[in-house]
């Protein structure tokens, strides 16, 4: 039992990490005649929970499921949660739905994989869960069978989750802390519950369960994306951000300190941009005022050799200064600064490697629609060069972070597809593979 649950735990934790993945939001339409405060409230809550994103396949019908969540162990597909009676959850009662949200156990009694973030949703009140169900009952039913997960045989027995739950799952709705303000409690309820921020921003323990002792100290968002900390740490977290900057970031995907990338761009696009000012302020207030939120000591970093540093600096000047400037300060609110950046300084260099290899696009919500993009350098810089330029940016201007080596870059490169050349059907008469200028070491 023990070993089986261990394996599952790892698979599950990777799946959770991917919850904040990508898709274009398709606005769910409330069916005429069914409009009510309850449904409207449920629609808003579904935005907070980012339900539609995970439960909609790329270019698929809203909430019909089928989004592949790739884990290192296999693929888990989200399920159809439209009110279709045969293939969706049309036959689920409010109680069935609450049980799934609250305990991770499906209508048929089977355990749901924790790719479905019930360890967070368990904190959501019955009234809110019912409102979400009322809203889901109004979305267009889609007849679409769920896809079977592609997992190795050892992971297919959902009974194993019983053991995993016993180890890592704390069931129970959120309880107000009487010592705190209403705003703090609202923030705590959202962050720890429906918004499931910790799914990515809290580290996993070695069994794949959440390390509650390190809540919101940063974690993994899958496919090598490192999620920065949300606590007081300034170096690799948002400790240096004001509450107003946290709100601005969640509303638009950018602020003076940073800009969204990867899965977080999708979270902004599909979820946080729609939140009320009151809820965003509550989230920010809670994050700025968590008890027991203590700064970590900075990492012991190996000394960076002068030669590698010089090489990294030369690469930086040639490739990065056009947007991020020689002093690493970027262009305020346009191109994000690298100085003091949590994304740059996280111990896990996954995000910065990912972004340098494949490029990145900021969220483009209606309040800030540009969607500024950084091109990928994966075709232009090799693993050693990327490690050197990252080590320079992680040590210049007072930044500090553990060293990145070429092998780590290679490992990320293997798992993603760095393709950012201009598309090939252009009117160009030049072969796209013509030699390009390379940065000189």
């Amino acid at each position: 039992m023990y070993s089986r649950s261990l394996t599952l735990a790892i698979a599950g934790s990777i799946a959770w990490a991917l919850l904040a993945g990508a898709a274009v939001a398709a606005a769910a339409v409330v069916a005429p005649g069914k409009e009510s405060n309850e449904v409207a409230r449920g629609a808003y809550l579904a935005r907070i929970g980012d339900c539609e994103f995970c439960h909609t396949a790329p270019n698929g019908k809203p909430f019909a499921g089928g989004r592949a969540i790739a884990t290192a162990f296999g693929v888990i597909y989200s399920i159809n949660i439209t009110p279709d009676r045969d293939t969706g959850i049309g036959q689920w009662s409010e109680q069935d739905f609450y049980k799934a949200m609250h305990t991770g156990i499906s209508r048929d009694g089977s355990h749901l994989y924790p790719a479905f973030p019930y360890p967070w949703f368990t904190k959501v009140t019955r009234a809110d869960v019912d409102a979400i169900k009322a809203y889901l009952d109004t979305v267009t039913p889609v007849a679409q069978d769920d896809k079977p997960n592609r997992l190795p045989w050892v992971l297919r027995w959902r009974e194993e989750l019983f053991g995993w739950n016993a180890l890592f799952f704390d069931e129970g709705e959120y309880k107000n802390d009487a010592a705190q303000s209403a705003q703090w409690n609202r923030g705590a309820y959202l962050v720890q519950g429906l918004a499931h921020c910790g799914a990515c921003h809290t580290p996993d323990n070695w069994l794949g369960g959440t390390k509650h002792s390190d809540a919101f100290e940063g974690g993994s968002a899958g496919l090598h994306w490192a999620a920065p900390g949300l606590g007081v740490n300034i170096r690799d977290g948002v400790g240096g951000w004001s509450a107003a900057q946290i709100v601005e970031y969640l509303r638009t995907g950018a602020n003076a300190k940073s800009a969204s990338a990867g899965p977080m761009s999708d979270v902004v696009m599909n979820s946080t941009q729609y939140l009320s000012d009151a809820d965003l302020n509550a989230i920010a207030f809670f994050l700025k005022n968590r008890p027991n939120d203590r700064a970590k000591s900075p990492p012991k970093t190996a000394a960076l050799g002068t030669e590698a540093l010089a090489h990294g600096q030369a690469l930086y000047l040639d490739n990065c200064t056009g947007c991020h400037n020689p002093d690493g300060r970027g262009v305020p609110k346009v191109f994000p600064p690298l100085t003091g950046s949590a994304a740059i300084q996280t111990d896990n260099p996954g995000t910065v490697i990912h972004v340098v290899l494949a490029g990145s696009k900021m969220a483009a919500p209606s309040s800030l629609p540009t969607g500024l993009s950084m091109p990928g350098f994966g075709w232009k810089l090799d693993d050693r060069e990327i490690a050197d330029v990252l080590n320079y940016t992680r040590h210049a201007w007072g930044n500090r972070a553990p060293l990145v080596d070429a092998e780590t870059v290679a490992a990320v490169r293997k798992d993603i597809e760095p393709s950012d050349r201009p598309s090939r059907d252009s009117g160009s008469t030049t072969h796209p593979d013509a030699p390009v200028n390379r940065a000189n070491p």
Partner: protein
Amino acid sequence: MANPLKPVDIVLVGFGWTGSILAERLTQTGLEVLALERGKFRDTVPDFATTQIQDELRYAVRDGLFQDPARDTLTFRNSVDQTALPMRHLGSFLPGVGVGGGGVHWNGQLWRFLPEDFVIRSHTEQRYGKRFIPADMTIQDWGITYAELEPHYDTFDYLCGISGTAGNIQGQIQPGGNPFEGPRQRGYPLPPLKRSYATVLFDKAAKEIGFKPFPCPAANTSAAYKNPLNVQMGACTYCGYCEWFGCGNYSKASPQTTILPVLLQRKNFSLRTHCDVTRINLDSSGKRATGVTYVDAQGRQVEQPATLVICCAWAQHNALLLLHSKIGQPYDPKTNTGVVGRNYAYQITSAVDVFLEEIMNPFMGAGALGQAIDEFNGDNFDHGPEGFVGGGYIALWTTGGRPILQHQLPADAPKWGAGWKKAMADNYLKSASIATHGSVMSYRDSYLDLDPTYRDIYGDPLLRLTFDFHPNEIKMSGFLTKKATSIAQAMKTRSFNAVPRVGHYSIVPYQTTHNTGGCAMGASPRTSVVNKYLQSWDVPNVFVMGSSVFPQNAGYNPTGTVAALAYWAADALKNHYLKSPGPLVQA
């Protein structure tokens, strides 16, 4: 042909600046707008990314972003007694292709025409007498005034985040700006770009001889900017790769950097690329368009019905589309009747290369980084003693110092070998060039029609261009070149080298992509294709945009006026035509 597709309200043929402007404005009405673009989709990343765009061989030498003449070209001749031949390589001008059109690869030199430019015939006749205009010169008033266009120039200035110093705000002349410009309602949204050293020397020399130099208005951002559509731009890095390149830093205004992020999210807008529109379809009366036919990427003919058709293609392509679609009477130079293809015009340029004692660092530049004087543009000076119509600005641009094409050598430098290399090493950092940018008037024998011999890939006749420089333009350009030379002399050069424009127009060397006319606008259907709202006189549910509607060309880069006219027409469409479709001006 495939069955007709589902009708749309408005179809736009071409998706560069004018298509993007029209789409952004017209989608505000809630109507369904479809843009058809013959080229591919392109965006800042990945297509113009800083990782690869600074590739002069690929983009400037091998025409990476332009129309492919093996697919689409025209035939050319200097005069009606010659046989036109197909242009098989791009040369004199470089039409864009793909989303953003020429708005991707332009320099960003953003000017307004002078108030007198819009009333050139009546103004010239009034000031100099009717006989001052040569008999074969077919210039005409535009049917619109600068005052009518001013709000729309302003809209485009603020859309693009123009960097510059205003010269005339509501009639008040401003220090450091162009004192000759028409009154503008407010200053530029951004301060001027940083100066290159060569422009500082030009400025000093021009002032010494009594001119009033000013920084050229630039659609290159001098600082980060957020435009009224909430779209963000970064600050120009002076990389020197504007003209013939896309901008990877979000700092040169283009449809991609100013409009598309908002437009592409609108649910009532759609864009189809690789759609080559070959016809505007008419009903049996010939007075109403029913949509367009295009050839898609698979070579299939597709009929797209629409209630309103707006031609937003490259200037000459708009004229060609009307000719193929039999909208409006084709122009006949023999009888001087008809309108479609009439009044093709261009611009005439010359240069004075200067070789200086000090280092200029030409590689730090921007497409519209320049200092200019406007004393000799339009009718800013007395033409009486000179005996020509028109004028132009004189500017020193520091657009960049690219290794292959952007360098000057003294006239006596060896043309090859070790001597050439030494001359290049001696002069690359210490040279600059003063440019003159002159108007070209329209003439009875400068026009577009269908070629009798050569056909395109679909079997349709190619467009035929008949054009040459006339004595009026050669004289005017010589005058400008002399004035530019006087500034060069005052710049304390080691040497300078005037390169005047002489002889016949040649389609081979690059000069400028400022081709105009063929669908002239005006007050009378006898001399114009479209009315003052850019609406076809003959088929009122067809509108034509772009420099194709210019009745003649002025001494400024045309994009500002092209865009202002597009906003002007969009307003007329929104406020009048769409509420009550029909002719906006009674013929």
